[in-house]
């Protein structure tokens, strides 16, 4: 283990770290938006769109991100559709994350108790009002644990971007190992890099989850 080696590599890892954060951020925001849209289609049973959303969710959830990326990056250009590597990564992450988020939201909405829905109906709320004042506010809180798990999951999935030559954290480490053969040092920095992002996040999200479970909505 050599400090000098680690120090020398820090600028490169720094870039990878920033890129991992940035791609995760964009991917997560995109996933939440896509997930929300899909879960709304499903909640309101919008004709056609809700079936499309279901098919999308099944395809996305049941195939590996790596193959999704290979497709986007290597196979699509063959039929004339080409995106840059980072765009491919983001599209892939959103394609994957969108379905996980959709399931999370849908689970939350469905988790709102029947009693709540009926109470809302009993005071004459319309379907939209019921969604707005009862189902969505409670459903979002219920979906926080799932969201938390998804966020961590998606950040970790960015490590797979290495296969399409995006110089994020993992790619940086593998590249340095390939050039300078100091796998101990580089892997250590790599693990620490992920820990810096994920450990605090994991703690915050656990606390959030606990609050949702025990606090707010104990009737």
């Amino acid at each position, binding site marked *: 283990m050599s400090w000098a080696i680690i120090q020398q590599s820090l600028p490169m890892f720094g870039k990878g770290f920033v890129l991992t954060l940035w791609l995760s951020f964009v991917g997560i925001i995109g996933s939440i938006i896509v997930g929300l849209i899909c879960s709304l289609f499903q909640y309101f049973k919008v004709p056609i769109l809700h079936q499309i959303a279901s098919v999308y969710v099944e395809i996305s959830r049941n195939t590996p991100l790596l193959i999704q990326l290979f497709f986007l990056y290597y196979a699509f250009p063959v039929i004339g559709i080409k995106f840059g590597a980072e765009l491919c990564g983001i599209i892939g992450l959103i394609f994957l994350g969108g379905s996980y988020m959709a399931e999370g939201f849908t689970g939350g909405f469905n988790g709102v108790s029947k009693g709540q829905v009926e109470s809302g109906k*009993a005071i004459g709320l319309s*379907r939209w009002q019921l969604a707005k004042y*009862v189902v969505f506010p409670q459903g979002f809180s219920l979906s926080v644990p799932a969201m938390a798990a998804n966020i961590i999951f998606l950040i970790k999935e960015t490590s797979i971007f290495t296969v399409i030559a995006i110089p994020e954290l993992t790619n940086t480490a593998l590249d340095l190992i390939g050039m300078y053969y100091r796998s101990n040092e580089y892997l250590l920095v790599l693990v620490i890099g992920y820990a810096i992002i994920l450990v605090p996040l994991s703690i915050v999200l656990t606390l959030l989850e606990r609050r949702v479970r025990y606090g*707010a909505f*104990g*009737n």
Partner: protein
Amino acid sequence: MAEKVLQVEHLEKSYQKKHVLHDINFSVAQGEVVTLLGPSGSGKSTLIRCLNGLEVYQKGTITFEGQKIIPTEKNWQQIRQKIGMVFQSYDLFPNLTVMDNILLGPTKVQKKDKATARSEALALLKSVELDDYANAYPRELSGGQKQRVAIVRALALHPDFMLFDEVTASLDPEMVRGVLTIIENLANRDNMTMIVVTHEMNFAKQIADRVLFLQDGRILEQTPSEQFFTAPQTDRAKVFLDSMDF
């Protein structure tokens, strides 16, 4: 006889394979208090839920204030503003304060002026001795208090008709009285028309004008209250009444 507010004719209801209500016929007059008694599983909740459009029924008609109800979700939504309902599980919205729970109907559904609605709500809360709790969240209230708020929430829409489904069943015994008193006042003082499902026989005796006794999804008897509790028409009702006091 006074004007019929509600009339149910030949109502039939099944859950998938299970036939739960058989040819239900009865009516409720203006200002009348009907209690629905019967053993567990006899269909009391199902019947009362049909009257508010929370269950889909397969046959029969319900006529409310002279108008046959066409059972679409849209129509029911209109009618529910006139038929208040309170459930066993005080289902206040946990994400809203007591006041916002109450205001939701008047301001969002009936589009009432917020200030007016609020002062009305406060008056109602005062009448159930909960005006101090207007800004509390449901989780800060006891079961009895929650149930009283749930009643206020229903009343805030100025319904013509109220449905109560075992509203004290999940309360601690000492909390029961406060809630029942409120319903009693509604019946006797405000002359509200209502259908009450309850297992509290003393309470039923006290407020009911008429008793519908249900068994296995059929109305076995419809008897004026005094008569029912002293000399019910059917043997089944006798057994039922006997079992209710140990």
